[in-house]
């Protein structure tokens, strides 16, 4: 089953890639344009999508089940960090990331608070001050 989904995704993605690439100049074999290489690659992706999918149709399989809770929590925590870090600075971004990531598992609230505080200190001391990464600890910049 997994291979059928994967194969269909590859065929779809490859076909879309070829279609989009044909919008670029193909050029000639001697002087290839920007579209030449992507068209070849996209077609090969389609071909291998078929090669992955077809054998899978002749065997039984189970559908993989994702583990939703950690998946959603972890992805959201990264998203929140990305949205907050440029607007409010490193410390608020760290706090947000820690709290959202903690939703992936059942963790004691006090532990999360302590962890967030500890990570803020490490983040500022090691990265902003120590390694000189230019992220201010706090800022106010919504634009």
């Amino acid at each position, binding site marked *: 089953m997994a291979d059928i989904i994967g194969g269909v995704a590859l065929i779809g993605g490859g076909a879309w890639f070829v279609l989009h690439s044909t919008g670029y100049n193909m050029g000639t074999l001697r*002087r290839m*344009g920007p579209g030449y290489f992507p068209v070849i690659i996209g077609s090969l992706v389609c071909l291998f*999508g078929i090669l992955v999918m077809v054998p899978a149709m002749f065997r039984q399989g189970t559908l993989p089940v994702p*583990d939703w809770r950690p998946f959603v929590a972890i992805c959201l925590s990264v998203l929140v960090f990305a949205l907050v870090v440029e607007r409010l600075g490193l410390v608020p971004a760290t706090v947000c990331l820690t709290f959202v990531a903690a939703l992936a598992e059942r963790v004691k609230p006090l*532990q999360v608070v302590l962890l967030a505080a500890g990570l803020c200190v490490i983040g500022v001391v090691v990265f902003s001050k120590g390694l000189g990464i230019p992220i201010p600890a706090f800022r106010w910049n919504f634009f």
Partner: protein
Amino acid sequence: MEMFANLALGFQEAFAYQNLLYCFIGVFLGTFIGVLPGIGPLATISMLLPLTFHVPPTAALVMLAGIYYGAQYGGSTASILMNLPGTPAAAVVCLDGYPMAKKGRAGVALFMTTIASFVGSTIGIIVLTAFSPALAGVALAFGPADYFSMMLLGLVAAAALAQGSPAKGIAMVLVGLALGVVGTDVQTGAQRFTFGIPQLADGFNLVALAMGLFGVSEVITSIQRMRTVNKQKQEKITLRSMVPNKDDVRQSWPAMLRGSGVGSFFGTLPGAGTTIAAFIAYAVEKRIARKPERFGHGAVEGISAPEAASNASAQTAFIPTLTLGIPGDAVMALMLGAMIIQGIQPGPSLVTEHPQLFWGLIASFWIGNVLLVILNIPLIGMWVRMLRIPYSILYPSILLFICIGVFSVNNSAFDVLLVMGFGVFGYAMTLLKFEPAPLVLGFILGPLMEEHLRRAMLLSRGDAMIFLQRPISAGFLTVTTLLLAWSLFSAIRMQRKARRELAAAE
């Protein structure tokens, strides 16, 4: 004799106070992040990349390299004690290392993996020292067609040797190549697949791609696995418990040598990498063992061979990187990036133009490996204690380091968003059992391949026969074809076997 003079020069450079200090920092950090599951050398190196603006090139590269091979030492610790690999290459060590720990032989397993790491690294460094100047000489004769064919071989090798079906591996390489197309076309300046997003003009950020595919999806799966890890109290690792018995030594040393050989070879191939080397070394041991049924139940060869192989390949991976300027994996691509930041162009002329850097780096590998043995045998208790940190504290920290690391490369929050996107993609791939490593390799080599392909066709006036007329290129293509044929053959055989077993079961 010239080699010894060069090495003497290298040691002079490596023993400079500053380089020695950075070497120690590198291997220490490397062991640290290697022991911890979920954070690898890639995130660490990308976080430390900005630091290297402020230190001289040799010291910077010595430190970054130390993180890379130091992580190979640390990776097996968690595999043995918790059945959870600290680095992808150490996944093989779980197979026999964890059963050894369950039998109360964790100390011996930890000792043997350290010794195997040291043996593997030493042999890898000897290969590196002996072959890279010669290879650099040959590489001066390489034309664009030869480079193209060599990279093609690397990609096919990575795909065919990866876990799972070769068709899926090749498909992943191709997806990587497709992702590598995104950005500005170098030759015409055309914007491809950027959809008007200015941050995509330089293409996807490699660190964001790799951290999403490996880092984020690894954290998600680790949370899942951590629930099932038995929380039983670990035995204390004392120095006495580490002493191996006669049988362990007798069975291990030939395995270490074989593993080192396998590892040295696969490290040199651009694209094969440490994980593939470790898996193949394990397969070789199982194939030639007199009692293959011992494997999986705590066979000591099952840990020493792959451990030697992954370390040997971590050292020889520097051969294509330094002498050809072609990175074998994402970490090596970052090392190349660090060199370019420092104004050093990697490639065949590196050895002659920057001998102090080249030989100093190699000499630092010897020093670093001796430091690693000291760090890993007497101080093993410290690393073991670190594994007691609960994962609920560890994983938010790892995520934060990933985010800061990615952000710091370009100071761009857009790249952190990309991490999330690739994290979703990577987790989907894990569920559908597609390997991320070939994809990353395709992504790294894609732009280089396209450039060499177009240059080769321009030189040959559009005659594709150039790839067969040049002997070097034709040689690479022959090996590529053989490899494809072999993997096709073994895939068919596997399928037949599976069908027969299915029929027998019915």
